[in-house]
C-alpha cells in the first residue's frame, strides 16, 4: 500500500474512534431519557433518529452540506466561534459521522435501557444509594452488553461511510480522504491492485469488529436483539 493509502487507513480509524466515542457520550444520557420518556410525540422522535438507517447517504450528506455551509446560520455560527468552516474538514466529518451513525448508537442503548429492571431503581431509592453509585455499580454493569454493541456498531458503521463523506468532506489527503474515498478513486483510475488492498483492509477490519461483538455478546449471554 502507498503512504497515502496508509494515511487514509489511519484517518478512517481515527474518525471512527473519535466519532463513536463522542456519540456514546451523547447517546448514553439521551437513550436513558428516551427510554423513560412517555409522550405522544415519542414515535416522531424515534422515527427521526432512525432516518439515517433508510435514507440514501447522499441525501443526508446534502442536508449536512447545506447546514455546514458558511451561508447557513449553523455553519456561520460555527465559523464565527471556531474560526474555520465545517465543510471539507475533519471536524465536519466527525459531526457528519455522528449524525449518520446515530441510530446505530442509540437503538442498542434504548433497547437495553427499556429492558432494564426498573425495580432496581426503586430499590436504590429506598436504600438511599447515591446516583453516581447507582450508575457505576448497577446501571452500567447491567447495560454493558448494550453499551459494547452501541460502541462497536457505530465504530464499524463509520468505517464504511462513503456518501456522506463524499458530500461534506471531499477528498483532502490527511484531512478528509478516508479509505472508502481512496478506494473509489483507485477504481476510477483503474488501480485495481490498490483498490483490492484497501477493500481487503476494510472487509477484514469490519469482519473482525463484528466477530468481536458477537463473541462478547455470547460470553454475556446477550441476544442480538438490538433493533
Amino acid at each position, binding site marked *: 500500500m502507498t503512504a497515502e493509502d496508509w494515511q487514509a487507513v489511519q484517518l478512517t480509524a481515527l474518525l471512527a474512534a473519535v466519532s463513536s466515542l463522542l456519540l456514546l457520550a451523547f447517546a448514553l444520557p439521551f437513550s436513558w431519557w428516551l427510554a423513560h420518556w412517555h409522550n405522544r410525540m415519542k414515535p416522531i422522535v424515534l422515527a427521526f433518529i432512525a432516518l439515517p438507517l433508510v435514507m440514501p447517504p447522499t441525501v443526508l450528506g446534502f442536508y449536512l452540506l447545506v447546514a455546514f455551509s458558511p451561508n447557513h446560520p449553523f455553519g456561520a455560527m460555527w465559523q464565527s466561534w471556531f474560526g474555520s468552516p465545517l465543510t471539507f474538514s475533519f471536524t465536519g466529518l466527525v459531526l457528519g459521522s455522528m449524525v449518520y451513525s446515530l441510530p446505530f448508537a442509540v437503538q442498542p442503548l434504548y433497547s437495553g435501557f427499556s429492558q432494564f*429492571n426498573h425495580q432496581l431503581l*426503586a*430499590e436504590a*431509592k*429506598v*436504600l*438511599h*444509594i447515591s446516583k453516581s453509585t447507582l450508575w457505576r*455499580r448497577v446501571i452500567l454493569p*447491567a447495560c454493558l452488553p448494550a453499551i459494547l454493541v452501541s460502541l462497536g456498531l457505530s465504530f464499524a458503521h463509520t468505517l464504511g461511510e462513503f456518501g456522506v463523506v463524499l458530500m461534506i468532506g471531499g477528498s483532502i489527503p490527511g484531512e478528509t480522504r478516508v479509505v472508502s474515498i481512496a478506494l473509489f478513486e483507485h477504481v476510477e483510475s483503474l488501480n485495481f491492485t490498490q483498490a483490492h488492498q484497501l477493500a481487503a483492509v476494510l472487509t477484514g477490519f469490519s469482519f473482525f469488529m463484528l466477530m468481536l461483538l458477537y463473541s462478547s455478546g455470547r460470553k454475556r449471554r446477550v441476544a442480538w436483539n438490538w433493533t
Partner: protein
Amino acid sequence: MELDLTIVRDTAMLGRVAVQFKEKVATVGIFGVSGAGKSTLLSAIAGLLPSSTGQLNWDGHTISPATTSPLLSLVFQRPALFPHMTIGEQLHMVAARPLRRLSAVSDISEGCQISHLLNKRPHQLSGGETQRAGLARALSYGPSVLLLDEPFSALDWDTRIQLQQYLRAWQNKHDVNIIMVSHQLEDLSAYCDGLIKFDGFEAVDFGSSDQVLQRHFHGAAPDEQVSVIRGKLLEVNSESNAVALEVEGVTIQVKSAITHRGHGTFILHPQQIITDRSDGVHPSLLNALIGEVVSITGTQDGNKLVGIKVGETALLAAVNKLAFERKPFVVGESITARFGVV
C-alpha cells in the same frame, strides 16, 4: 402512630388512609384481600409515588410521601438484588452510607441466615434466600422506620419463626418501628402490636392486633385458611421456638414467634395442627384439644381443610388428600387437634 395519606399514582387518586393509634405501637401490620392496595400503600409511604400527599407521624419522626425519606427503608415482596454484585458487596455498599450503623454486616448476615451466601450472586439464590438477603440489605442501612412487604412469604415455618425472632430482637434493641404488609394473619398476629385492615385503598378497620382480629373473625368461621385461637400466653421458649398457650383450660405448645404475653387472639396456619380420631386418643395426651368437626372444605391441590370447634375456639386443620380418602372425616364427629411442636 398517626398516618394520614392520600395515595396518588401519577394524576389518579387511588384512596385516602387515615388511622391513628392512641396506644404506643412499635409494629403495625396491614392485611386485606389481594388487590386491596396494601403494597401500593407501602410504596406511597416510601415516597415512590411522589404525587401522594399527607404524612406519617411516629415516635417524633415525620415522614412525607413527596420524597424518599432518609429515615426509612422498604423491603419489597420479591426484592430485586443488584445482579452484578455479590450479596456481601450489596450489604457493604448500603452499609457504607448508613442512616445509623445499628449492627455490623456480619451480625445482620448471621441473624438473617445468609452468612453462607455473601459470596454468591443473586441468580444463584432461591426465593427464600433472596427474601432474606433483601431484608439483610435493608437492615444494613439502619432505618428508623422499616417497611416490609410480605417479608416471610417464601420461607418455611422454622426459618420464618427464627427470622421473626431475630427481627424482633433487632427491632427492640435499636428502637425501630416496622410497618408490615402480609396476607398471612399468622405472621401479623404473632408479630404486630397494631393492625390495619385494608380494602379498596382504604383502612376499613384499625386498632390493637387483638381487637382487630376479634372483629375480623367475629361470628364467622375462619375464612382465610387460618386457625383462630383465643387464649393466654403462659411461657415463651426461645430455644425451641415454642410458646405455651392456655386454651379452653388446656395448656398447649405451639411453634410461633409470639411474645406479647397475656390474653389474646392467636392465629395458626392449618399445617401447624395435626388431627387425630378422638376415640383413638389417650386422654392423657399432652398438647391436644378435643373438638367437633364443623366444616370440611377442599383446597386447590385436592387436600382438605377440616374446621374444628373447641368451645369458643375455631380451628382449621389441613388434612392430606390421601389420608382423608382413606378415612374421611364427617361433620359432627369428635376429633383431636394436636399441636406437634416440641
